């Protein structure tokens, strides 16, 4: 690990001088304006803060709080021509970045201040190999030869713990997993040993276990190079884990600033307290009351030995050469008016299972809803079953037709199934709107005129329109802000009590799952590795994978900061297999009271 050796190449007298004097970056009275229909609107106003050398500053806030705008204005990457810095100064190395010309700014970007973005796939160029992108970034800012630049790139990749760094240089972004891509982005950012690293939601798009790893990596790098980090996140768990100091933002203004201990243990402002209260915490779910043992209530949905496989054809004749074994022999029951949570990391087959139940992908095995088996049904009967099963998707904006009024969208399921007259449907939609916390007057608006949480409420209203027995919620709260998330979860619980709906709740977020579920099934590589009641899974996890998932959740308490995350040495294996190379089927063993655990290597205790 020799990345820091390159630092002296571009040692800058300005920085050296100012480093001794005080903060490396000082933002004073920053204001950012965005042009809208009704003139300019300030999205960030009067923001002042300082960043010390080697410090991690977290800017926390919900969407629309102006935290990303702040980071973009430090980099002077505000979307043009809509947004501009309208007032204030950003002092860095004796210069004011707010007024610096574009040319000098280019010399600073990447070199002195680096940035990593939320979505690693979109911030890497998909048609260039990662090696080329890394080497080019190094060559742009230094006068190293191609060979030295390459050497530096390999070192940077090693620094972010990418195995076989040399060979990886030739790979393209799509050949890497999400976590690896984000590590490449970090490698790119640190290859030039910048003074400041701005990370805008760096782990939001990643799985929990990978998230821990990436955070740990950032901490290591900071320790070694003394880089200052500005970490922008909505996740208070990440804040507690990483921050030295915290700035809480809301509506473009700083609400509160303080050390991480102050913010978490003695928040001065009401908003900070509310924000912290909304964070789902592990070990918080006991309020849900006792869960009856299985079998005592009738199952509303029974899934038995479900398989979903996708063929991959290849070769000249287009024969099937590989299969994606997305779901491999999954069985579970969902009791009436209870919640079964399906958890696991991306690619484990939980969404595919949901889609099979919703009738979106072909499957083998049996799925029975309300006593009727889906497999053998034809047209009309299948449509009748559709009434009992509704789905709420992850992204409420993507799952609402943007060209239809929301009132029509909610009325549509009734129209499809021929329920009621036009007037009756209108009344029902108005009632549903009120029930989910929207105003009936908003029926005439289009989806883009609502906030994320409101859109998800529209999706819930639409799912309720047919009075289903089962609602499948596929990561339905993952895309929402914490405070909104908490309200939507409350709404879901209320609706369950009121209408007796069963939920299949799919999530990667263990804290949310603990809050809402009655029963939990943990999926890994298309199979269930552990299933039981919520208390069994969270109180006494028996499978290694379940334990790792639970441990990976950042705790929103700086006092309980973990020293080390368990590092994943190897990547999760692929579910794509050659034809004839069937995956080994896991055998579930009962360890007491219906708590089933996959027998074999992963089982503990």
């Amino acid at each position, binding site marked *: 690990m020799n990345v820091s050796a390159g630092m002296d190449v571009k040692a800058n007298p300005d920085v050296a001088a100012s480093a001794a004097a005080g903060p490396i970056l000082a933002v004073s009275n920053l204001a950012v304006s965005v042009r809208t229909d009704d003139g300019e609107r300030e999205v960030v106003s009067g923001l002042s803060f300082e960043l010390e050398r080697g410090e991690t500053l977290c800017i926390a806030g919900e969407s629309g709080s102006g935290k990303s705008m702040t980071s973009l204005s430090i980099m002077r990457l505000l979307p043009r021509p809509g947004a501009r810095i309208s007032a204030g100064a950003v002092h860095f190395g004796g210069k004011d970045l707010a007024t610096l010309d574009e040319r000098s700014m280019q010399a600073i970007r990447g070199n002195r201040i680096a940035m990593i973005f939320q979505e690693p796939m979109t911030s890497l160029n998909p048609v260039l190999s990662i090696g080329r992108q890394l080497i080019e970034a190094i060559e742009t800012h230094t006068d190293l030869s191609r060979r030295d630049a390459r050497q530096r790139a390999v070192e940077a990749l090693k620094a972010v713990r990418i195995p076989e760094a040399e060979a990886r240089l030739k790979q393209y972004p799509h050949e890497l997993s999400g976590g690896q891509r984000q590590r490449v982005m970090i490698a790119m950012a640190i290859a030039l040993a910048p003074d400041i690293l701005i990370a805008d939601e760096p782990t939001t798009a990643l799985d929990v276990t990978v998230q821990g790893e990436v955070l740990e990596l950032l901490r290591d790098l900071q320790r070694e190079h003394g880089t200052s980090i500005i970490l922008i996140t909505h996740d208070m768990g990440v804040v507690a884990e990483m921050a030295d100091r915290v700035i809480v933002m809301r509506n473009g203004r700083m609400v509160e600033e303080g050390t991480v201990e102050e913010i978490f243990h003695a928040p001065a402002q009401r908003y900070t307290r509310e924000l912290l209260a909304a964070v789902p915490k592990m070990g918080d779910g006991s309020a849900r009351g006792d869960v009856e043992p299985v079998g005592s209530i009738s199952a509303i949905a029974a899934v038995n030995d479900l398989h979903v496989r996708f063929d991959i054809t290849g070769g000249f004749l287009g024969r099937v050469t590989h299969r994606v074994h997305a779901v491999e022999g999954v069985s579970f029951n969902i009791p009436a008016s209870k919640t079964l949570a399906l958890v696991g990391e991306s690619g484990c087959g939980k969404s595919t299972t949901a889609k099979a139940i*919703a009738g979106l992908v072909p499957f083998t095995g049996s799925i029975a809803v309300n006593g009727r088996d889906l497999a053998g049904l034809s047209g009309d009967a299948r449509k009748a079953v*559709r009434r009992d099963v*509704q789905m709420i*998707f992850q992204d409420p904006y*993507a799952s609402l037709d943007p*060209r239809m009024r929301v009132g029509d969208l909610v009325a549509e399921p009734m129209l499809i199934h021929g329920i009621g007259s036009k007037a009756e449907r209108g009344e029902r939609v108005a009632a549903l709107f009120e029930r989910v916390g929207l105003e009936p007057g908003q029926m005439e*608006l289009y989806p883009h005129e609502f906030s994320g949480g*409101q859109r998800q409420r529209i999706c819930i209203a639409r799912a309720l329109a047919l009075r289903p027995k089962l609602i499948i919620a596929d990561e339905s709260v993952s895309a929402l802000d914490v405070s909104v998330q908490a309200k939507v979860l409350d709404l879901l619980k209320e609706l369950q009590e009121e209408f007796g709906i069963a939920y299949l709740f799919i999530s990667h977020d263990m804290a949310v799952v603990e809050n809402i579920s009655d029963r939990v099934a943990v999926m890994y590589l298309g199979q269930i590795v552990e299933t039981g009641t919520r208390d069994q899974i969270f109180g006494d996890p028996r499978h290694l994978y379940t334990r790792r998932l639970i441990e990976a959740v950042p705790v929103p308490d700086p006092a309980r900061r973990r020293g080390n995350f368990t590092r994943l040495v190897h990547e999760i294996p692929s579910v794509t297999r050659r034809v004839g190379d069937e995956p080994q089927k896991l055998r579930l063993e009962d360890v007491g009271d219906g708590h089933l655990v996959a027998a074999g290597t992963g089982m503990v205790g």
Partner: protein
Amino acid sequence: MSGRSAPDIVAGRRPVKSRPGVLGRLVKRPLALLGLFVIVVVVVSAGLAPWLTAYGPDEQLFDGLTLQGAPLPPNGQFWLGTDLLGRDLLTRILYGARTSLVIGVVANGVALLIGTLIGVIAGYYRGWIGSLLMRFTDLMMAFPALLLAICLAAIFEPSLWIVAMVIAMVNWVQTARVIYTQTSSLTEREFIDAERTLGASNARILLRHILPHLLPTIIVWGTLGISTTVLLEATLSYLGVGVQPPTPSWGNIIFENQTYFQAAPWLVFFPGAAILALALAFNLVGDALRDILDPTQRGRS
């Protein structure tokens, strides 16, 4: 967990007021209004041609030529001048508007319809239906359009409606290609999946959810197609397989007179300007319609 959870944002963004209809919003845009005006003028004058002019379209006027037999430039009696046979150009353009409207609107519309239908079906169902339809489209694309038009026109007795049909047959291909690509990416969108889980039928998804998203593309191709088809008709007429003389169309007026372009430029200029004005007018209205019919653009213009 008592009581109902509070909404995230209290109160709607704005009071709901009744919105003006499509036409009402169209006339609020000056450019669209101009386009609409031109289209109305062309349609009305085509319809009222016999009452608007004192001459017949095929009438060879004695005083329509100079003593040397040359056509007259625009003057007080013949506003747009006369052509080589001494016919009044204004009259011919007015009557020609009928032909050109049929070609530009009907033939182009049929082409658009076929293209959209094939594109949507191929894009939505894919599989063997999709491949079959798209390979057929490729085949049609590979065929020289003019040659095909000549063949078709030669088989049937040339008449205005046959020409319109021929033009429709060769002009749907590009639309089908573009619509196919768009439909297949729309089909992958999550809201289509969401509709499926509600139990929506294919027809419902296609008509209510996919077609509205294709509208902008259809409008753009439709307006672009107008000038192309009017000129294709002229080409066919020139080759003798289009509208038969002496029936006027804007295209064949240009082609009849193009060799005299230097001596009598008005004979090419006026019908050319008429085609341009009509195409432009449809473009303006089409652009405005595209914006008005897109609810996601509201409040952002």
